[in-house]
């Protein structure tokens, strides 16, 4: 019981006189700052308050383009494009900064963006971008070759405290002429264009960025259809239509000119129940990250629509540690794959809002190989047979070999939506005689544990528009210090993933990744579980929402009906 409650209780019960009550309360008062340091927080009364009033929710009156009030699920850390990796920020930046080249989910074409054309040298070391000459940043600075050069210089200077990774093998940017920039690499980096299109290495306004550090972290001027007019940390952002915007990828959007929406009120509403309530009350007209429990309710509401979009990157999956017994045995890993019925997880836990995944990549990722879908259907008999073959025989509830029980440890990342799926996997493993022990550990501690290899099973997901993400997850150089939490080594896979950086013919390159996926599935260092999906809900009359390669909503064509 809390001390103060207990104290009041004792007093109320008549065990304490008033005098004693005050003495005890004073004692608590002295001890309390330490307690509050652990569980509570406080306010600084002396610091200057900087409260701003929240704009009134625009809600219903919006007709035609109108004002969209968007309920966002997460608080951005900073708006500085080079200092964040957070989706919360990325989703705002996607509407405020255009890429040099565009590409969209499920479409293999590159569309001109801030660069009207580009050229890759035959050795894959030089990317020459011819930039549009009419593009201006929101603060009026021209978007030119100098700006491109500045962007990489800023990233390369440790004094700037940037987080974004420099492109692998990057050497320099040459300003060929004011509107031609040449990005030069020491070693080929073939994923470069796709990653650019996914919103990495966004060009920054050189003068503004150099002079205004605080401004960059709150309202950085970009090149996109919306201007970040205001950002009140932790509360809301106002995105205003850029009236000068005239460089949309016309071939994809089917039109040119400024965005349709006049403004977006980007309100941060972290609690899912509250977010849903604002949509129902009309305080917002679009919300993101709806939870499975709300799915049916929204679907049944005639005034609302659900927007679903599959994602790129890697599905939600379990990595099997290839160096720690018993998962060091390929037969055991394969048996584990056969033992999992993904449908129970997707249909029961997630109420069919997601679909089962196959293979190490999401279906929409370029270079996805449909051949992986043949691997490891739910087949408990086959699982038992493989375990028998590996020498593990049933003895009581679980299997044994040389007196040793078939026992594996699953360290689940806490608060990562994997607790229930892990329990399902545990019970499904039990049916084939594997004893799966579940524990849970929080980020980021769990990453060190995974790299140390204490676990047999680890859960992981990864965003990424290019199949190069396989390198981070399955290349042997990433064991113990990166994200190869399967501790997986296969020299042939290593070779293919390395070649994936070098092959500049995109079709041939994708072939390398297709081969790698099959080899990986054969070795079974993973159990793919379900495909990630962006789930949003909005007013029925809303149209024109598009997505970037990272599945960030693009509001260029978004319109609210009358």
């Amino acid at each position, binding site marked *: 019981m809390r001390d103060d409650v207990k104290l009041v209780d004792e*007093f109320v019960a008549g065990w304490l006189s008033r005098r004693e009550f005050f003495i005890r309360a004073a004692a608590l008062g002295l001890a309390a700052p330490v307690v509050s340091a652990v569980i*509570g927080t406080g306010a600084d009364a002396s610091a200057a308050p900087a409260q701003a009033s929240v704009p009134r929710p625009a809600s219903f009156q919006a007709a035609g383009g109108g004002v969209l009030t968007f309920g966002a699920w997460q608080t951005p850390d900073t708006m500085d494009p080079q200092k964040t990796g957070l989706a919360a920020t990325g989703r705002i930046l996607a509407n405020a900064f255009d890429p040099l080249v565009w590409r969209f989910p499920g479409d293999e074409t590159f569309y001109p963006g801030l660069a009207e054309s580009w050229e890759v040298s035959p050795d894959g070391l030089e990317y020459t971008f011819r930039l549009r000459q009419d593009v201006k940043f929101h603060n009026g600075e021209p978007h030119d070759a100098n700006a491109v050069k500045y962007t990489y210089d800023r990233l390369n200077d440790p004094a700037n405290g940037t987080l974004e*990774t420099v492109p692998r093998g990057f050497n320099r940017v040459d300003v060929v002429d004011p509107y031609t920039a040449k990005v030069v690499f020491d070693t080929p980096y073939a994923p470069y264009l796709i990653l650019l299109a996914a919103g990495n290495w966004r060009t920054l306004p050189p003068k503004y960025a150099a002079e205004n550090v605080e401004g960059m*972290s709150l309202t950085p001027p970009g090149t996109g259809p919306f201007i970040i007019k205001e950002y009140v940390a932790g509360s809301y952002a106002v995105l205003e239509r850029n009236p000068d915007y005239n460089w949309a990828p016309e071939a994809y959007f089917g039109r040119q000119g400024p965005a349709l929406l006049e403004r977006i009120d980007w309100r941060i509403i972290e609690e899912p129940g509250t977010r849903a309530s604002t949509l129902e009350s009309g305080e917002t007209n679009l919300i993101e990250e709806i939870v499975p429990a709300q799915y049916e309710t929204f679907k049944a509401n005639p005034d609302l629509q659900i927007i679903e979009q599959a994602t790129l990157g890697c599905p939600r999956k379990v990595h099997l540690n290839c160096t720690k017994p018993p998962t060091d045995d390929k037969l055991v890993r394969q048996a584990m794959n056969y033992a999992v019925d993904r449908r129970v997880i997707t249909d029961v836990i997630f109420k069919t809002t997601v679909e089962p995944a196959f293979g190490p990549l999401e279906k929409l990722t370029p270079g996805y190989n449909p051949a992986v879908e043949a691997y490891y259907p739910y087949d408990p008999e086959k699982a038992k047979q493989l375990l028998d073959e590996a020498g593990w025989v049933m003895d009581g509830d679980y299997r044994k070999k040389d007196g040793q029980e078939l026992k594996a440890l699953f360290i689940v990342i806490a608060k990562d939506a994997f607790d229930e799926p892990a329990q399902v996997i545990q019970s499904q493993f039990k049916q084939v005689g594997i004893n799966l022990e579940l524990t849970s550990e929080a980020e980021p501690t769990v990453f060190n544990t995974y790299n140390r290899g204490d676990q047999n099973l680890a859960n992981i997901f990864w965003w990424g528009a290019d199949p190069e993400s396989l390198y981070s997850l399955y290349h042997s150089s990433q064991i113990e210090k990166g994200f190869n939490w399967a501790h997986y080594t296969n020299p042939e896979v290593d070779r293919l993933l390395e070649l994936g950086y070098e092959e500049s013919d995109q079709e041939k390159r994708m072939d390398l990744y297709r081969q790698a996926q099959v080899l990986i599935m054969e070795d079974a260092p993973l159990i793919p579980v379900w495909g990630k999906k962006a789930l949003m809900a909005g007013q029925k009359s809303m149209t024109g929402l598009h997505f970037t390669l990272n599945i960030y909503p693009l509001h260029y064509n978004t319109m609210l009906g009358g």
Partner: protein
Amino acid sequence: MSKYLVQRLVLAIPVLLGVSITVFLMMHLIPGDPALAMLRGQPTVTEEDIERVRHQMGLDDPIPVQYLKYMGRVLQGDFGESVKAHRPVLTMIGEQAWPTIQLAVAAMVAAVVIGVVLGTISALRQNTWVDSLSMLVALFGVSMPSFWFGLILIYVFSLRLGWFPVTGQGGWERLVLPAVALGMDFSAITARLVRSSLLEVLRQDYILTARAKGLREQVVISRHALRNALIAVVTIIGLQFGYLLGGAVVIETVFARQGIGRLAITAILSKDFPLVQGIVLLAALVYVGVNLLVDLSYSLLDPRIHYQ
């Protein structure tokens, strides 16, 4: 009085120092590499990238050196820069302080008003159904998680009745639901406290004297009884203030308000060391200050209490 004040202020120093060391150790002794967490999802993360981020976060110095460097700067009024937002910690806390103070004060007012009314009614109608009902309400209030209560308030007053907006920031109408949700727990405690305190006071001789003098019952209660009974409430206000700030974490999240609570949670989850340390140190400072104010206010309420 001034001697007492100086004594209390000096005593605050070891408290704050202890808090700073505790927080520093708690944040730094938890194993785990925030650099990896921050880089997850970036294209082609190299070992140099991990080293670079670790260095930026100041994690490559030994822990005692990190602490001394930190405290050295704090004593000069520099709480450092958030490693996530890349903005000064004091600025960030300043931005979020006002909404939290508004919320905490509103919650406290709501709680004291509800609590004193319920408690007084209970005491005056001791052992009647009115008493049982208001104590039942109080029991309900202290047992209910504020998170759940907040969502219920939203459902009833925003979605069903449409009286208040769902999210709580901006005008006063956006402050009502969060303040009630946050103050509920405290109002229940106050009600129980006022009831017992008042019952005890009502048995005192001076109340008998007051009544014997022929004073109206209203005057007896408000001037003679309640005033003495409220000293207990004032004491608990000081203690509760810290819990209100702690409770703000949950309420700010439920009602999508900005504030210190949410800032703290985000900072803790993302291991933003300088920001967490700044928030906790200032919270401790406020806590010590509020308790001092409470102690000093006793002499105003009860002239017999003096500080030497």
